[in-house]
Structures are given as C-alpha cells and as structure tokens.
C-alpha cells in the first residue's frame, strides 16, 4: 500500500509539473517537444506555439486569413524575434528563434469574420509537416502551405475516440487481419475462463452452467469485437 501511495504522489507531482510547464490546447512540453502546435481556445482565439528540445532553431513563416486580425499577443518572445502585421491586417509574418534557454514561443491571434486560415510554417527555413500539429498531436497538414476552415477545430472535437491516436493505429491493424484478431482475443478469453474455472468456478454447484455462460460471454465479446473492427473506420 505504501508503494501504491508513493506512486500516486509521484504521478500527482508529475502531472503538476507537466501542467505547469506547458499543458495547453495540445499537450506539449516546452523545451522537450519538437514542432508547431496550433489550437483554438474557448474564446475562439487561435494559438500558434512552437517548441524544440533545447536546440538552436529558427521558426518562421506566415499566417493569412480572409478576415481581419484584430489583435495579436506574444508569449515567450525575445528581442531578436520579429513579427509583422500587414497593413490590411489579414496576414502576419514571424521569425523567432529558440535555443538552450528559450524553450518556446507563442502567438495568440484574435481574428474577426474569417472563413479560413492559411499557414506557411517552417523550421530552419525548411518544411517538416510531421512536426506541425493542428488541434491535436500528429494531426498534420498535407501541403507545405495549408488551409483550415473556421469550424475545423470544432469538427476535430467531434472525432470519435476510436479514431484518436494511438488507438486508431491499434484498431486499424487489428481490423486488417480480422481472423487473427478474433483468434487472439478468443485465446486470451479461454485462458481467463480456465483461470476462473480452476479458482472461482471449481467449487460452485453450478459448475457447468458457469462454464457455458463464460464461453457464451466470450463468443459475444468476440462478435462485438468483430462488429467493431469491421463496421467502423479507423483512419
């Protein structure tokens, strides 16, 4: 029990540290995580943050919109970092560097009347789309210059749990070879029933009833897994 309590305290402290060091719209750890992180807060402001694992790097690019950028706020910005809002307030350009002691920078945009946002985000003057996370971790764009619609983030929130990473990857592979997956689950089930049989069920007066019920439950679970893996899409 003492060990359990210690683990619990450790997890609690770890959570506090993580929350205190950068748990935002998307989870990332400034100074450890690597890439761009884009999200929308509850007041519809757009956040663009970037971080790297304490290596000297330059993050640059622009964000454009068909609306009007009313206001922008900067977090973790240094003297050498630059940002420029166009005269018509529909495009903003930035160039900011991170280093061993500069963990993260962030731009918060307050935008009115827009239907889309367009991004061109570079790291060390090159493109690494796998490092651009839109709304959630590894939700990456397909093109170097990419566009998202206004309701993109709210649509993302509606994504079902089984399409979230890493579960989506697991379910996709399990669904790729359904016979193997069902056999695997059935085998695990048989072992669990066997353990129950020689421990709990063994002494019961309704021994055979419980055995039959256990296997019926297992067949039901396997059928449920079959339906789940074949009827849903995980990509």
């Amino acid at each position, binding site marked *: 029990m003492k060990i359990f309590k210690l683990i619990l305290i450790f997890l609690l402290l770890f959570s506090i540290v993580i929350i205190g*060091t950068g748990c935002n719209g998307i989870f*990332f*750890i*400034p*100074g*450890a*995580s*690597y*890439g761009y992180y884009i999200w929308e807060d509850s007041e519809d402001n757009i956040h663009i943050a970037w971080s790297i*694992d*304490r290596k000297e790097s330059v993050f640059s690019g622009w964000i454009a919109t068909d609306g009007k950028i009313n206001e922008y706020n900067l977090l973790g910005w240094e003297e050498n970092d630059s940002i420029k809002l166009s005269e018509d307030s529909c495009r903003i350009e930035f160039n900011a560097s991170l280093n061993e002691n500069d*963990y993260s920078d962030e731009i918060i945009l307050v935008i009115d009347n827009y239907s889309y946002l367009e991004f061109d985000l570079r790291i060390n003057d090159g493109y690494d789309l*796998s*490092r651009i996370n839109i709304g959630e*971790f*590894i939700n990456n764009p397909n093109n170097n210059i990419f566009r998202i619609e206004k309701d993109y983030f709210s649509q993302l929130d509606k994504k079902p749990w089984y399409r979230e*990473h*890493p*579960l*989506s*990857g*697991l379910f996709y*592979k*399990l669904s*790729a*070879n359904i016979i*193997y*997956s069902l056999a*695997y689950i059935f*085998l*695990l089930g048989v*072992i*669990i029933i*066997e*353990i129950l049989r*020689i*421990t709990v069920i063994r002494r019961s007066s309704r021994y055979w009833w419980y055995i039959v019920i256990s296997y019926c439950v297992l067949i039901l679970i396997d059928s449920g897994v079959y339906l789940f893996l074949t009827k849903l899409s995980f990509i």
Partner: protein
Amino acid sequence: MRVKSFFRSIGKVIVTKEIFENKILLRLLYKYFLIGMLIRLIFLPFFFQRDLLSTYQRAAQTVFGGNLGSDFQQFIMNSIHSIYLFIIKSILPIVGEYSEILLQTDTWSSWVNFISSENVFIVISLFKVLYLIFDILCMFLVMRLLFDDEPEKRLKVFKLWVLNPFVIFILYIFARHDIIGIFLTLVALLLAKYKRKYWAIFVLALAVAARFFPIMILPILIFYLADKKKDYIILFPVGISGLIAVEIFSYFYFGRSVIFSLINTQHFDYILSSKLELVIHDRIFIFIAVYIIIILSYLHIRKKTFDIFLNYCAIIYLMYVSICYFHPQYLLWVVPFLILIFVRKKVLYRYHWVQFALLMVILIYWGDLVTKFVLAPIDPKYFIYLTGPIPIINRFYSPSKFVNIFRSVFTGVSLWMIYLIYKENKNILSGNSIVDINNNLIEK
C-alpha cells in the same frame, strides 16, 4: 487405460512426479502457468525492440538469400532463427510476404516499413513464439535444479520464473533471444546436478558457442564437476570445444575468425568497461579482477555442493551487471539462479523488483530505440513523433546524470544482493539453516 497411463507418465515427466501426484500443487502449478501465459500473450503481438528485426533480417538473408554467414559471430543462434523462419514461412505465406522488408539493408526504412505493415502483429507474434517455446521449456527445467523431495519449493521456483518481471519484459516486450542460451545452460546444469560431467560440460560448450555469456560460469562448473586431476585436463578442452568448433568452421567456411571478431566487438569491451587507471598505460579491469576473486573463492570451498555452485553463478552474473556496462537482456542470465535463492531468502526477491524498477529508468540510456520505439508497432507515427524521455529529462536536468544516479543505485542494490548471497553461502557451509531463520525474522 493405456492412454490414461501414457498421459499420466507424460504429466510426471513435465511437472515432476511429486507435483503431479499432489492435486493441490498440480492445480496451483496450472494456475500459475495460465496466468503466466496470459501475461505473455497480452504482450506477444504488440511490442518489440529493433534488435528482434535485425535478428530475423540476418535469418532472412540465410533463408531467402542463401547467405549462411549473415551472422557468423552468432552462427548457431542464426541457424536456429533461420530454421524457425524457414518453417513458419513454409506454413504461413504471410511471413514470406515480409521477405522484401526483411532483406532491406537500410535499417531505418526496413524498421519503418515493418512496423507500418498491416500484418505486423501476426509477424511479431510468430517471431516471438520461438522464445515462448524456450521460455516454457525453461520454466519446467529450472524448477528441477534444486529442492528434490520438496515439491512446494519447486512450485515456488516455477511461480517465480513464470511471473518474473525480467523474463516477461526481456522476452515479450524487449524480445531478445537470450532465452535460447539460458535453455542450453539449464540443460547443462541439470546434467551437472546428476553428475553427468562430460555431458554437462559438452552442453555448456554448446551454450557458449550459441551465446558467449555461459563461458563466465564454465570455470566454476569445471571445479564443481572435477573429482580428479584428469577431469580438469578433459573438462577444460571440452568446455571450450564449442567455441573452437565454431572458430574452425568459421575459419574454413567464411575465412574469418569468430573469436578475434568477438573480442574486437564493442560487446567484449563491456567486460572491460569498469577500470582503474593507474599510470601511463597501466590499468586494472575491475570485473576481471573481481571475477578472479570469485573463482578463487569458489575454488577454496571444500564442500562444493550444487546449491553453492548455483549461488556462485548468481554472484558472477550479478557482479557483471553491477560493475560493467550491460544491455537490458543481460539481466536475464542471472534470473534462473536468483529465483532459486528467492525461495530460501525472500528478502532478495524484493531487491529483485527494485532492480527491475531501476532498469526501467536505466533504459533511458539507450534512447528512443528501447523506450518509445518499443511501442511503435501499435501506431508508428504516434510513437515516432512522441517526445522521448531524454528531451523531457533534459528540460529539467542532465539526462546522463539522472540515469547514472539510478544506475548507481542499481549497482548498490546488486552488490548488496551479492553480499546476502555470499552470507547465505557461509550459512550453508556452516551447516546452519540460517536461511530459514532469516525468513522467520522477516515474517516477524
């Protein structure tokens, strides 16, 4: 009736006569076996460390490419994997479909292609089934090493192996093949137990040829088995005959020396990794010095019983991981010997769990490859781009200092375990069953 008696005799061979004839113990053994299998099967399809793929890539070069020397340093191990790969690809065409990935020479792209493939869970499971077979053989062999006529204690040994965190982690999460060498070593030890000295040394020689590490216990096995001077003269050459045979084969077939190639690998340098620098070129390799002390200490024991011999095997392997650079799978070598001691000295089992917890931190040494990438078959992109433990630690503190603090604690715990084993040896030699007194003290 004949069929029944046939299965009864098979049962006795598998689980020992004493356990088979005791219904309660037999049921308990079956329960532990099932729980162990459940845990193993849960991990079987999902996790592996990159080295598993490398091992089967070398086997694939033999099976698909006809290259016998794809891993000439581990010729026997490669042959076992090649035969197994040949069998599974003949039975299941799905394995054959992986030949292209397995024959890819670029390690990164072959790994990415492998973990991204749709049937990766099946193939990982099949690759690991070989280790599962040897693991099952080992769990029934290891309980036979000690405690004759004490079936309860044998059952405890079985339980400690089946539910051992190192066994489960190294074979089913890390997926390394050391279990094959351990199986051969256990066979050799069983033969030694029944004083089949030439067979014991011959099988250990085979184990040495398969995986170099059993050579560490070869000297004390010779000291344990030898009764006369003549035995030393015969047993020593037999002990190294496996290595010599592989050397000769390699020299004539591949035109390369296995021994010199092994000595020049970084793995051999691990043995020399802890050293005392003196002046100019003079230095002392600590493990070699300590190893000699252990061997001499064993040599001076008059009454070389089998349990003392096994305790010394545990001391040697514990000493190695205490003071030398090691890979996580090397910890498996000490497990068969330690679990025999746990039955008599419970306190060591707690330290064993502490060792395991510390290993989980020490793993960070080897970076992404042995931490987050182990989980990569589940969702490659997610785990490749997930922030690894080193950058997270580096955000707050030096990762190398952090890991080395835990490494030092690991060394401290392991050295303390050695001391406790050494103390137990003294008790056994003095004829006092202090082990029981110790256990009573803990219970109090």
